[in-house]
């Protein structure tokens, strides 16, 4: 194993026809970490995850996953990775038990019956084991999928937007489970759209249009982006928001209920704008620490620019 890095890939690139879906992507994931993988739809998150677990062969790049070569040892990687797909990918016309049993047989697990029984008991689905998987609600399907990809006790979990379409309570339970797994030494790479989930991650990497924009411990992300943010409150926020968008030095105006978070990377420019508006006295301007929220909204906007340059 290369140091304590469970995933260590460099320059991963995948093209589908003319389109470069993933463009020279690097990532190093330490053991036991929860690594958040963020980015807009179609940014190449799923493709990257598929390359890491050996479902797709990268066009360029190299590296290891669990110390195994991602190009040549895909089959051995698959034996130790649990991959939870974005869409429920178990058989809706098989019962809960049959699905778990099938997965156990795919990994040729010993003590199959015991393992399946234990998984059913953990899920609390022992009574409903003969119910068809298709009849489960979204939250239960997600729990079943997680149980199925944990059956073979993988060292690495790859979760592709695992909580899409799941209610907040189920999402919280799901994340409790993820943290418990990470504490027991399982490494987790999870892609998500949700800010509240991103905050749960130890590390975050942000990818847009196939390119990595930022990567680091989540606490340092706002500083890495280098945003200055003002919290602005007062009357007629909507008109103010429109006016601020026209100002030089203001790169982003995000609305949170009745307040605006006004951010920019150019401190002097933004301070100038703030000083001018403070003179009107109608609104309260307070500088605040930039949070992940602002950082992500900023990154998303940057990615759009990035793409328009890219397309031109």
């Amino acid at each position, binding site marked *: 194993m290369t140091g304590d890095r469970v995933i260590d890939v460099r320059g991963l690139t995948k093209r589908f026809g003319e389109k470069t879906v993933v463009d020279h992507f690097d990532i190093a994931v330490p053991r036991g970490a929860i690594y958040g993988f963020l980015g807009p739809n179609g940014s190449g998150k799923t493709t990257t995850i598929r390359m890491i677990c050996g479902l797709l062969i990268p066009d360029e790049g190299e590296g290891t996953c669990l110390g195994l070569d991602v190009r040549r040892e895909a089959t051995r990687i698959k*034996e130790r*990775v649990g991959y939870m*797909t974005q869409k*429920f990918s178990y058989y809706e016309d098989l019962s809960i038990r*049959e699905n778990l049993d099938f997965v156990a047989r795919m990994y040729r697990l010993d003590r199959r019956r015991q393992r399946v029984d234990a998984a059913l008991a953990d899920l609390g689905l022992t009574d409903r084991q003969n119910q068809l998987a298709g009849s489960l609600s979204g939250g239960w399907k997600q729990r079943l999928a997680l149980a199925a990809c944990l059956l073979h006790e993988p060292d690495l979990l790859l979760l592709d937007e695992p909580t899409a379409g799941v209610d907040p309570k189920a999402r919280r339970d799901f994340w409790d489970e993820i943290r418990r797994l990470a504490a027991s030494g399982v490494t987790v790479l999870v892609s998500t759209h949700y800010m509240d989930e991103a905050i749960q991650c130890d590390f975050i990497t942000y990818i847009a249009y196939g390119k990595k924009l930022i990567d680091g411990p989540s606490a340092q992300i706002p500083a890495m982006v280098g945003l200055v943010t003002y919290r602005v409150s007062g009357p007629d926020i909507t008109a103010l928001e429109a006016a601020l968008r026209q100002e030089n030095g203001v790169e982003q105006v995000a609305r949170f209920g009745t307040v605006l978070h006004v951010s920019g990377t150019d401190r002097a420019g933004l301070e100038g704008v703030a000083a001018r508006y403070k003179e009107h006295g109608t609104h309260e301007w307070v500088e605040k620490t930039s949070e992940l929220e602002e950082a992500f909204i900023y990154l998303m906007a940057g990615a759009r620019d990035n793409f328009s340059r890219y397309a031109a």
Partner: protein
Amino acid sequence: MSISPARFFAVLAKEFIQMRRDHVTFAMMIGLPIMQLLLFGFIINSDARHLPTLIEMNDHGPLVRAVVSGMEISDYFDIQGTVSGVDAGESALRDGTAAFVVVFPRNFERDILRGLRPTLLVTADASDPSAVGGAVGALSGIVSVAMDQTFGGPLGQLAPSPPPFEVAVHKLHNPEGRTSTNIVPGLLAIILSMTMVMMTAVAIVKETERGTMEMLIATPVRPLEVMLGKIVPYVFVGYVQTAVFLLAGLTVFAVPFEGSWWAFFLGFNLYIVVNLALGFLISAAARSQMQAMQLSMFTILPSVLLSGFLFPFAAMPGWAQIIGNGVPATHFLRVVRTVMLKGGEVGDIAGDLWALVAILLVISSVAMLRYRQTLD
């Protein structure tokens, strides 16, 4: 690459469970052969029987009586009664009360004995030519038989040669000219190609479409294990269909089985494999179950139209025969007809078996190429 039998059997078992739960497919497997057999076997019938017939008797001798009773026995003709006069006969034909009017001329028997070649006038309702063709053909035979019976014994040498009504209707292997005897064995080729191609095509695309393929290939399972595990269940389906078909064909339609079972077994297994490979090719090319269905339909048309199932192969234009030779159903159709109706052995169908092998090689190499691409 090591193949795990355990994983193969896991896929196989899963496939059977899914097959059992999918009632529509299950009904199709058993219902389709029976329905087609009944529809094609009973309804497509170019050889109509029990056609209403009127007789105009101007001679009451033993020969004429023998011909009439022969006609009654043949069950082509339902003798409704006698008429007199051309007008009465023609009006009966017009309004459909009769399909045939048979006029025995005065002194018919005497003229035959004198070698005057009298004319037996058959007026037929030819609005459906194929309906009366068989009956007209049978009539000459009936008259000849009646003459043999009447002039047999000491007067046998008087039987005219060639007999005046002898029309060369020589129906080998199917002396009664029943359409179902010809259609039913051919139908096996159509039923198998329809269900085998369609079910395999859909079965594999279904995994891709429902997203389960992604889960499957994320496990250590090998492509070959998946492929075999998914295809083998349909071989069993093919066996069940053939059993249903043979049972119904041999009992309900009384189709003969003259030839070697071994030759049949060989041909039909080969044909099943060819169809499964074709289904696999379609599933590798199709992006959705809908597309797979449409592509399957595309392969079924040539099987019906160009294989010789509906139209005699030899009567098709040359270019159509060339295309028809590339259709697996063409060769299996010949195998089944040769074995069941003509008493064929393995040697008689060797050419068609080799043709099937050649088609199989082409289809499966293309399918494997496509399959490898889709996995990446």
